């Protein structure tokens, strides 16, 4: 066991910290708002211009070939510096791992740099009105036509769909198929004829979702990812990234819990023992995630796959995030309910906003109930039926 960072890693940290401290924008309006989204995209372009957008990617696609440890360091520094939510996250964290694994050279060259540069913004198209946790029951379909496919059906809960240019998702390409078979992973132009994007506001009233209707939208063969009929395995190969550390690395929770500790210290006279204990519990859970991740990353660095452990991470960080924000609201007491516009709102209502964001965590990327089934079946070996 060696838990020290190499001089190279320390240099990387120092460089990232200096750049972020000099460049991170302050007080952006929410990402999921008409006002805030373009400002977040502008920030993404700045990140990309200085090669901080996708540090672990190959240089050819705009990265700096950082190791996975360096990537963790970057994430810690990003959130430590108060960096905003990533407008490109659905692309760079959810789609990109799949493109790296299954994309053709042409697809990689076309998709990855534009995604990293925030020139093309991506949203995901998994859920349907009748297919949530039971994703394999999806009914949106693709019909074969000359040199491509036409899509029919509806996707929903597409995060930031109204602000996005393209959608990735599963469609049933074999009409006779059932469940996991006969699905194909498509990359769809949301501006194409036959696509209608309708905004859906989320819990906080911001326009965070879209539902997307397909009525014969054309997708060329070059936008099939990983082969016709292989959609399920292609999609599942990257679910580990979504649940695990790439989507929500320890850095963001370490930063949040540091703010929580500060909030508690400021209110020291008023914070009772029970609240103090909850603050400490949140801190320890964030620390546990950091340390667990270091161990997991060491295994990955030795060539082991991530595996079903990503379900452990997902349940842990999502429950930690809710508890952490609940504790903050309890520390704020009567001020907790104040909207960002209220003159007396603490930190411009950041804790309330964060709480509403955190509440989605146990639901998206596979509900925590589904994750617990996966833990029980794939890690502990309990019978499915």
């Amino acid at each position, binding site marked *: 066991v060696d838990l020290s960072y190499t001089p190279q890693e320390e240099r990387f940290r120092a460089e990232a910290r200096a750049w972020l401290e000099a460049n991170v924008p302050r007080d952006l309006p929410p990402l999921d708002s008409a006002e805030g989204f373009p400002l977040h995209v502008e920030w993404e372009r700045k990140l990309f211009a200085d090669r901080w957008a996708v540090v672990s990617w190959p240089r050819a696609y705009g990265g700096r070939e950082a190791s996975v440890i360096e990537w963790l360091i970057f994430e810690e520094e990003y959130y430590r510096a108060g960096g905003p939510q990533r407008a490109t996250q659905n692309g760079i964290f959810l789609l990109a791992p799949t493109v790296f694994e299954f994309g053709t050279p042409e697809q990689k060259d076309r998709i990855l740099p534009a995604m990293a540069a925030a020139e093309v913004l991506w949203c995901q198209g998994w859920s349907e009105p009748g297919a949530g946790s039971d994703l394999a029951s999806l009914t949106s379909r693709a019909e074969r036509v000359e040199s491509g496919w036409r899509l029919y059906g509806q996707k929903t809960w597409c995060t930031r769909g109204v602000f996005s240019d393209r959608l990735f998702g599963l469609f049933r390409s074999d009409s006779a198929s059932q469940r996991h078979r006969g699905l194909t992973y498509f990359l769809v132009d949301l501006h194409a004829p036959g696509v209608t994007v309708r905004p859906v506001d989320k819990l906080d009233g911001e326009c965070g979702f879209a539902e997307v209707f397909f009525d014969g939208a054309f997708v060329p063969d070059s936008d099939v990812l990983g082969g016709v009929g292989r959609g399920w395995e292609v999609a599942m190969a990257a679910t580990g990234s979504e649940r695990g550390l790439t989507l929500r690395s320890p850095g963001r929770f370490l930063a949040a819990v540091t703010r929580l500790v500060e909030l508690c210290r400021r209110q020291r006279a008023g914070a009772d023992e029970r609240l103090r204990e909850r603050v400490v519990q949140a801190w320890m859970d964030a620390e546990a995630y950091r340390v667990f991740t270091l*161990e997991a990353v060491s295994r990955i660095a030795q060539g082991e796959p991530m595996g079903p452990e990503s379900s452990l991470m997902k349940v842990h960080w999502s429950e930690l995030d809710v508890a952490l924000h609940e504790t903050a609201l309890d520390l704020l007491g009567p001020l907790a309910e104040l909207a960002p516009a209220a003159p007396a709102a603490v930190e411009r209502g950041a804790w309330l906003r964060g709480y509403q964001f955190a509440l989605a965590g146990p639901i998206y990327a596979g509900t925590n109930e589904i994750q617990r089934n996966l833990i029980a079946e794939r890690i502990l070996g309990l019978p499915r039926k």
Partner: protein
Amino acid sequence: VRFAFTEEQLLFQQALAELLAKECPAEALAVAWRSEDGRVPGLWGKLAEMGVLGLLVPEAHGGLGLDELDVVLLLQEAGRAAAPEPLLESAAVATPLLRELGGALAARWLPRLASGEAIAVAGLESTPLVAGAPEADLLLLERGGELHALERAQVRLVPQPSVDGGRRLAEVHWEPTAGTRVVAGPRARELAAAAFERGALGAAAQLIGLGRAMLDLTVEYARKRHQFGQPIGSFQAVKHHLASAHLKLELARPLVYHASYSFVHDWPTRARDVSTAKAQVSDAAQLCARVALQCHGAIGYSYEYPLHLWLKRTWALARAWGDAAWHRARVARLLLDG
């Protein structure tokens, strides 16, 4: 960063696991619990032969000269087996305390501790009941900011039987004299604090193994036990109990390795790291105990089924060397009041 144990460390762990599986199965534990001294005959000598008892003893005194990070996986295995010997107390707390004390006392006792001829325990002011004291030949005792060394004949023990029959506790009555004092002042406090942290780390390591053993036993049971025509492990309620317990234990486990590293390298965050590990593992292991019992149902509640051996050791160690609340309060002071 290389957060992984070495090949040698893993092989040592495996060797101990095999030894304990052979020498100390549940049937042997049940016999030991009913015996006079609560021990498994011959086991201590085999632990000495394997080098476990002398792990922290310098090579010059007949040990292996290793450090606290090398002990973690071994204590984890001792926990997994619920081994009823004062391994933590003697080999992982009193032995390194003696090593730090050095001098003639260490030269006299360390070789005997490594060879298994003698057992030593530490009684700190924060641990009024001393586990392993009835078996001990040497007691290192703290009072008034001083450390004293007394042999068995110099103390009077009042046994305080534990719910855990493999764990012998006693109150130690003794009088400090100039002749028994081995160190005083800040150095004594420093050594006592380090001894306490070794105890907390060692208990945490054992709790990882205990939690894992209880989950393994329960998963096996839930796969075999049928109700309503199917294995109870196929029911979501049972799955979710076990998944939650596994999750808590897995997220706590690396904290113990991390804290051991912090301890060995004397990081500035050492106290916080040790307390975080002990708090998180104590809670996790207790959740494993509750879930294991619940998923077993009535059979787990019976004395003849072995689960209770692990439950009781867990109850004891979760609270020994500072319970979760104590360690959380310490982290609170370090984090919020500093």
